[in-house]
Protein backbone atom coordinates (compact mmCIF):
# COMPACT_ATOMS: atom_id res chain seq x y z
CA UNK A 1 0.00 0.00 0.00
CA UNK A 2 1.38 3.39 -0.92
CA UNK A 3 0.46 6.69 0.65
CA UNK A 4 -1.26 9.24 -1.60
CA UNK A 5 0.74 12.27 -2.77
CA UNK A 6 -1.23 14.49 -0.42
CA UNK A 7 -0.42 12.35 2.60
CA UNK A 8 3.26 12.32 1.67
CA UNK A 9 3.20 16.10 1.22
CA UNK A 10 1.67 16.70 4.65
CA UNK A 11 4.03 14.16 6.18
CA UNK A 12 7.12 15.80 4.70
CA UNK A 13 5.94 19.38 5.20
CA UNK A 14 3.60 19.26 8.16
CA UNK A 15 1.64 22.49 8.56
CA UNK A 16 1.26 24.14 11.93
CA UNK A 17 3.29 21.67 13.91
CA UNK A 18 3.93 22.78 17.48
CA UNK A 19 1.95 23.80 20.49
CA UNK A 20 0.50 26.70 22.47
CA UNK A 21 0.64 27.05 26.21
CA UNK A 22 -2.42 25.23 27.52
CA UNK A 23 -3.15 27.89 30.11
CA UNK A 24 -3.06 30.72 27.57
CA UNK A 25 -6.28 32.66 27.08
CA UNK A 26 -8.44 31.46 24.20
CA UNK A 27 -6.56 28.20 23.75
CA UNK A 28 -8.43 24.91 23.54
CA UNK A 29 -6.51 21.64 23.74
CA UNK A 30 -7.63 18.25 22.50
CA UNK A 31 -5.67 15.10 23.27
CA UNK A 32 -6.79 11.82 21.79
CA UNK A 33 -5.35 8.42 21.06
CA UNK A 34 -6.06 5.36 19.00
CA UNK A 35 -5.82 2.31 21.24
CA UNK A 36 -5.54 -0.01 18.23
CA UNK A 37 -2.23 1.42 17.05
CA UNK A 38 -1.10 3.54 19.97
CA UNK A 39 -1.03 6.78 17.99
CA UNK A 40 -1.26 9.92 20.11
CA UNK A 41 -2.52 13.25 18.81
CA UNK A 42 -2.61 16.70 20.38
CA UNK A 43 -4.49 19.45 18.59
CA UNK A 44 -4.86 23.01 19.82
CA UNK A 45 -6.89 25.97 18.68
CA UNK A 46 -6.53 29.66 19.50
CA UNK A 47 -9.84 31.49 19.49
CA UNK A 48 -10.68 35.18 19.25
CA UNK A 49 -14.28 36.40 18.98
CA UNK A 50 -15.60 32.91 18.21
CA UNK A 51 -13.17 32.52 15.32
CA UNK A 52 -10.19 30.18 15.23
CA UNK A 53 -7.22 32.42 14.49
CA UNK A 54 -4.54 29.77 14.82
CA UNK A 55 -4.21 26.02 15.21
CA UNK A 56 -1.34 23.72 16.05
CA UNK A 57 -0.83 19.99 16.35
CA UNK A 58 1.59 17.37 17.54
CA UNK A 59 1.05 13.82 16.45
CA UNK A 60 3.11 10.77 17.21
CA UNK A 61 2.02 8.01 14.93
CA UNK A 62 1.85 6.89 11.33
CA UNK A 63 1.97 9.09 8.24
CA UNK A 64 -1.79 9.13 7.80
CA UNK A 65 -2.35 10.30 11.38
CA UNK A 66 0.19 13.09 10.95
CA UNK A 67 -1.32 14.11 7.60
CA UNK A 68 -4.88 14.02 9.00
CA UNK A 69 -4.02 16.33 11.89
CA UNK A 70 -1.89 18.61 9.71
CA UNK A 71 -4.77 18.99 7.28
CA UNK A 72 -7.21 19.54 10.16
CA UNK A 73 -5.20 22.50 11.48
CA UNK A 74 -5.10 24.00 7.99
CA UNK A 75 -8.85 23.74 7.71
CA UNK A 76 -9.49 25.07 11.21
CA UNK A 77 -7.73 28.37 10.70
CA UNK A 78 -10.20 31.13 9.93
CA UNK A 79 -13.24 29.02 10.72
CA UNK A 80 -15.82 30.01 13.31
CA UNK A 81 -16.38 27.59 16.19
CA UNK A 82 -19.66 26.56 14.63
CA UNK A 83 -18.04 25.82 11.27
CA UNK A 84 -15.22 23.90 12.93
CA UNK A 85 -17.77 21.67 14.66
CA UNK A 86 -18.93 20.54 11.22
CA UNK A 87 -15.62 19.12 10.00
CA UNK A 88 -16.15 15.41 9.43
CA UNK A 89 -13.63 12.62 9.26
CA UNK A 90 -15.06 11.68 5.87
CA UNK A 91 -13.95 15.07 4.51
CA UNK A 92 -10.41 14.22 5.59
CA UNK A 93 -10.62 10.74 4.08
CA UNK A 94 -11.71 12.24 0.80
CA UNK A 95 -9.13 15.00 0.71
CA UNK A 96 -6.23 12.68 1.57
CA UNK A 97 -7.45 9.62 -0.29
CA UNK A 98 -7.06 7.44 2.79
CA UNK A 99 -7.43 3.69 2.29
CA UNK A 100 -9.93 1.78 4.49
CA UNK A 101 -7.25 0.59 6.95
CA UNK A 102 -6.32 4.21 7.67
CA UNK A 103 -9.77 5.62 8.21
CA UNK A 104 -9.30 5.48 11.97
CA UNK A 105 -6.58 8.15 11.57
CA UNK A 106 -9.16 10.58 10.22
CA UNK A 107 -11.55 9.63 13.03
CA UNK A 108 -8.76 10.46 15.44
CA UNK A 109 -8.37 13.90 13.86
CA UNK A 110 -12.10 14.57 14.10
CA UNK A 111 -12.08 13.46 17.73
CA UNK A 112 -9.15 15.80 18.38
CA UNK A 113 -11.01 18.76 16.85
CA UNK A 114 -14.09 17.98 18.95
CA UNK A 115 -11.98 17.61 22.09
CA UNK A 116 -10.19 20.93 21.46
CA UNK A 117 -13.50 22.72 20.90
CA UNK A 118 -15.00 21.20 24.04
CA UNK A 119 -11.92 22.17 26.06
CA UNK A 120 -12.14 25.75 24.81
CA UNK A 121 -15.84 25.86 25.68
CA UNK A 122 -15.20 24.53 29.15
CA UNK A 123 -12.40 27.01 29.75
CA UNK A 124 -14.43 30.00 28.65
CA UNK A 125 -17.39 28.98 30.81
CA UNK A 126 -15.39 28.61 34.00
CA UNK A 127 -13.84 32.03 33.56
Amino acid at each position, binding site marked *: MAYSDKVVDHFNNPRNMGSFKKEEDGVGTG*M*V*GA*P*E*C*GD*VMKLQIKVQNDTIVDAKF*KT*FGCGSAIASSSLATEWLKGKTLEEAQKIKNTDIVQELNLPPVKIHCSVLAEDAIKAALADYQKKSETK
Partner: protein
Amino acid sequence: MARSMCWHCQSEVAGEYFCERCVKVQPVSKDADYFTCLGFPRRLTIDLGMLEAKFYELSRAFHPDFYQNKSETEQAISLSNAATLNTAYRTLRDPIQRAEYLLDLEAGAVKEIRSSPPADLFEEILELQDTLEEYRASDQSSDAGKQLRAQLQTEQTALERRKREMEEQLQHLFRQWDELQDKGEATSAARADRERLLKQMREILSNRTYVKNIVSDLVATIG
Protein backbone atom coordinates in the same frame (compact mmCIF):
# COMPACT_ATOMS: atom_id res chain seq x y z
CA MET B 1 -17.59 -27.64 15.88
CA ALA B 2 -21.14 -27.03 14.71
CA ARG B 3 -22.75 -29.80 12.74
CA SER B 4 -22.66 -29.38 9.00
CA MET B 5 -23.15 -31.30 5.81
CA CYS B 6 -20.36 -32.74 3.71
CA TRP B 7 -19.99 -30.74 0.48
CA HIS B 8 -19.27 -33.96 -1.37
CA CYS B 9 -21.52 -36.77 -0.13
CA GLN B 10 -24.09 -34.63 1.72
CA SER B 11 -23.92 -36.74 4.83
CA GLU B 12 -23.68 -35.08 8.20
CA VAL B 13 -20.13 -34.28 9.21
CA ALA B 14 -19.49 -35.37 12.77
CA GLY B 15 -15.69 -35.24 12.64
CA GLU B 16 -13.61 -32.10 12.90
CA TYR B 17 -12.37 -31.46 9.38
CA PHE B 18 -13.00 -34.67 7.50
CA CYS B 19 -16.22 -36.35 6.48
CA GLU B 20 -16.36 -39.72 8.16
CA ARG B 21 -18.18 -41.30 5.29
CA CYS B 22 -16.35 -40.17 2.18
CA VAL B 23 -13.15 -38.96 3.96
CA LYS B 24 -13.15 -35.66 2.04
CA VAL B 25 -11.59 -32.60 3.64
CA GLN B 26 -14.15 -30.05 4.88
CA PRO B 27 -13.73 -26.27 4.79
CA VAL B 28 -13.37 -24.30 8.02
CA SER B 29 -16.81 -22.91 8.76
CA LYS B 30 -17.15 -19.21 8.01
CA ASP B 31 -18.67 -18.67 11.46
CA ALA B 32 -15.86 -20.42 13.27
CA ASP B 33 -13.66 -18.16 15.38
CA TYR B 34 -9.95 -18.90 15.82
CA PHE B 35 -10.56 -20.72 19.09
CA THR B 36 -13.04 -23.08 17.47
CA CYS B 37 -10.75 -23.46 14.48
CA LEU B 38 -8.02 -24.90 16.67
CA GLY B 39 -10.42 -26.80 18.87
CA PHE B 40 -9.88 -24.68 22.00
CA PRO B 41 -12.51 -23.19 24.30
CA ARG B 42 -12.75 -19.39 24.36
CA ARG B 43 -10.31 -18.86 27.22
CA LEU B 44 -7.46 -16.45 27.78
CA THR B 45 -5.09 -18.95 29.33
CA ILE B 46 -4.00 -21.52 26.80
CA ASP B 47 -1.42 -24.28 27.12
CA LEU B 48 1.04 -23.24 24.41
CA GLY B 49 2.37 -26.77 24.03
CA MET B 50 -1.08 -28.12 23.35
CA LEU B 51 -1.81 -25.27 20.98
CA GLU B 52 1.35 -25.95 19.03
CA ALA B 53 0.67 -29.68 18.88
CA LYS B 54 -2.83 -29.07 17.55
CA PHE B 55 -1.51 -26.58 15.01
CA TYR B 56 1.07 -29.06 13.70
CA GLU B 57 -1.48 -31.83 13.57
CA LEU B 58 -3.87 -29.75 11.48
CA SER B 59 -1.07 -28.29 9.36
CA ARG B 60 -0.13 -31.81 8.38
CA ALA B 61 -3.75 -32.68 7.68
CA PHE B 62 -4.14 -29.73 5.30
CA HIS B 63 -0.68 -29.86 3.76
CA PRO B 64 -0.88 -29.22 -0.02
CA ASP B 65 1.45 -32.15 -0.70
CA PHE B 66 -1.30 -34.56 0.31
CA TYR B 67 -3.75 -32.98 -2.11
CA GLN B 68 -1.74 -33.03 -5.31
CA ASN B 69 -3.70 -35.91 -6.74
CA LYS B 70 -7.05 -34.79 -5.34
CA SER B 71 -9.80 -32.78 -6.99
CA GLU B 72 -9.51 -29.03 -7.48
CA THR B 73 -12.18 -28.44 -4.84
CA GLU B 74 -10.21 -30.40 -2.28
CA GLN B 75 -7.00 -28.59 -3.19
CA ALA B 76 -8.71 -25.24 -2.76
CA ILE B 77 -10.23 -26.25 0.59
CA SER B 78 -6.93 -27.50 1.97
CA LEU B 79 -5.14 -24.34 0.90
CA SER B 80 -7.71 -21.98 2.38
CA ASN B 81 -7.89 -24.06 5.58
CA ALA B 82 -4.12 -23.92 5.92
CA ALA B 83 -4.18 -20.13 5.55
CA THR B 84 -6.94 -19.67 8.15
CA LEU B 85 -5.14 -22.03 10.47
CA ASN B 86 -1.91 -20.04 10.21
CA THR B 87 -3.64 -16.79 11.12
CA ALA B 88 -5.53 -18.48 13.94
CA TYR B 89 -2.35 -19.94 15.39
CA ARG B 90 -0.40 -16.69 15.14
CA THR B 91 -3.22 -14.79 16.87
CA LEU B 92 -3.76 -17.25 19.71
CA ARG B 93 -0.08 -17.93 20.33
CA ASP B 94 0.51 -14.42 21.65
CA PRO B 95 -1.35 -13.68 24.90
CA ILE B 96 -1.87 -9.99 24.05
CA GLN B 97 -3.10 -10.65 20.52
CA ARG B 98 -5.28 -13.44 21.89
CA ALA B 99 -6.90 -11.04 24.36
CA GLU B 100 -7.37 -8.35 21.70
CA TYR B 101 -9.02 -10.92 19.50
CA LEU B 102 -11.31 -12.15 22.27
CA LEU B 103 -12.32 -8.58 23.04
CA ASP B 104 -13.24 -8.10 19.38
CA LEU B 105 -15.33 -11.27 19.53
CA GLU B 106 -17.07 -10.17 22.72
CA ALA B 107 -17.48 -6.55 21.70
CA GLY B 108 -20.84 -7.28 20.13
CA ALA B 109 -22.20 -8.55 23.42
CA VAL B 110 -20.81 -5.72 25.47
CA LYS B 111 -21.49 -2.25 24.25
CA GLU B 112 -19.29 0.74 24.94
CA ILE B 113 -16.22 -1.31 25.57
CA ARG B 114 -14.04 1.51 24.26
CA SER B 115 -12.25 3.17 27.09
CA SER B 116 -11.84 6.89 27.44
CA PRO B 117 -8.35 8.20 26.78
CA PRO B 118 -6.24 8.48 29.91
CA ALA B 119 -5.37 12.17 30.03
CA ASP B 120 -2.46 11.94 32.43
CA LEU B 121 -0.78 9.18 30.44
CA PHE B 122 -1.12 11.27 27.28
CA GLU B 123 0.38 14.33 28.90
CA GLU B 124 3.28 12.24 30.05
CA ILE B 125 3.82 10.70 26.62
CA LEU B 126 3.62 14.01 24.80
CA GLU B 127 6.06 15.58 27.23
CA LEU B 128 8.43 12.69 26.78
CA GLN B 129 8.16 12.96 23.00
CA ASP B 130 9.18 16.62 23.32
CA THR B 131 12.23 15.65 25.37
CA LEU B 132 13.05 13.00 22.77
CA GLU B 133 12.93 15.61 20.03
CA GLU B 134 15.05 17.94 22.06
CA TYR B 135 17.61 15.17 22.49
CA ARG B 136 17.62 14.31 18.78
CA ALA B 137 18.23 17.95 17.91
CA SER B 138 20.90 18.45 20.58
CA ASP B 139 24.61 17.94 20.35
CA GLN B 140 24.60 14.51 21.91
CA SER B 141 28.21 14.65 23.05
CA SER B 142 27.65 17.89 24.96
CA ASP B 143 26.87 17.97 28.67
CA ALA B 144 23.28 19.01 27.97
CA GLY B 145 22.90 16.14 25.53
CA LYS B 146 24.31 13.66 28.03
CA GLN B 147 21.99 14.95 30.70
CA LEU B 148 18.96 14.54 28.41
CA ARG B 149 20.09 11.05 27.59
CA ALA B 150 20.33 10.12 31.25
CA GLN B 151 16.87 11.55 31.86
CA LEU B 152 15.43 9.55 28.98
CA GLN B 153 17.10 6.40 30.23
CA THR B 154 15.47 6.82 33.64
CA GLU B 155 12.10 7.31 31.95
CA GLN B 156 12.63 4.24 29.81
CA THR B 157 13.36 2.04 32.81
CA ALA B 158 10.26 3.36 34.59
CA LEU B 159 8.04 2.81 31.56
CA GLU B 160 9.36 -0.69 30.99
CA ARG B 161 8.52 -1.51 34.58
CA ARG B 162 5.05 -0.07 34.08
CA LYS B 163 4.53 -2.17 30.98
CA ARG B 164 5.47 -5.29 32.95
CA GLU B 165 3.06 -4.33 35.71
CA MET B 166 0.29 -3.89 33.16
CA GLU B 167 1.03 -7.32 31.75
CA GLU B 168 0.85 -8.84 35.23
CA GLN B 169 -2.48 -7.12 35.82
CA LEU B 170 -3.70 -8.51 32.51
CA GLN B 171 -2.66 -12.05 33.46
CA HIS B 172 -4.67 -11.64 36.64
CA LEU B 173 -7.73 -10.46 34.70
CA PHE B 174 -7.29 -13.27 32.18
CA ARG B 175 -7.49 -15.84 34.99
CA GLN B 176 -10.59 -14.17 36.41
CA TRP B 177 -12.22 -14.19 32.99
CA ASP B 178 -11.48 -17.88 32.48
CA GLU B 179 -12.86 -18.79 35.89
CA LEU B 180 -16.03 -16.92 35.12
CA GLN B 181 -16.34 -18.67 31.77
CA ASP B 182 -15.73 -22.05 33.39
CA LYS B 183 -18.57 -21.44 35.80
CA GLY B 184 -20.77 -20.42 32.90
CA GLU B 185 -23.41 -18.71 35.00
CA ALA B 186 -26.08 -16.75 33.16
CA THR B 187 -27.08 -14.56 36.11
CA SER B 188 -27.11 -10.80 35.81
CA ALA B 189 -24.31 -10.62 38.38
CA ALA B 190 -22.15 -12.85 36.20
CA ARG B 191 -22.95 -10.72 33.19
CA ALA B 192 -21.97 -7.56 35.03
CA ASP B 193 -18.74 -9.25 36.10
CA ARG B 194 -17.94 -10.20 32.55
CA GLU B 195 -18.62 -6.71 31.36
CA ARG B 196 -16.42 -5.20 34.04
CA LEU B 197 -13.55 -7.57 33.20
CA LEU B 198 -13.80 -6.84 29.48
CA LYS B 199 -13.70 -3.11 30.14
CA GLN B 200 -10.73 -3.40 32.45
CA MET B 201 -8.87 -5.54 29.96
CA ARG B 202 -9.66 -3.13 27.14
CA GLU B 203 -8.34 -0.23 29.14
CA ILE B 204 -5.09 -1.86 30.19
CA LEU B 205 -4.50 -3.24 26.69
CA SER B 206 -4.92 0.26 25.22
CA ASN B 207 -2.66 1.90 27.76
CA ARG B 208 -0.11 -0.82 27.22
CA THR B 209 -0.06 -0.05 23.48
CA TYR B 210 0.69 3.62 24.18
CA VAL B 211 3.44 2.71 26.61
CA LYS B 212 4.85 0.11 24.23
CA ASN B 213 5.05 2.68 21.43
CA ILE B 214 6.86 5.27 23.48
CA VAL B 215 9.25 2.63 24.82
CA SER B 216 10.16 1.54 21.30
CA ASP B 217 10.68 5.19 20.32
CA LEU B 218 12.98 5.54 23.32
CA VAL B 219 14.88 2.37 22.45
CA ALA B 220 15.26 3.48 18.83
CA THR B 221 16.68 6.84 19.89
CA ILE B 222 18.90 6.10 22.86
CA GLY B 223 19.48 2.42 22.19
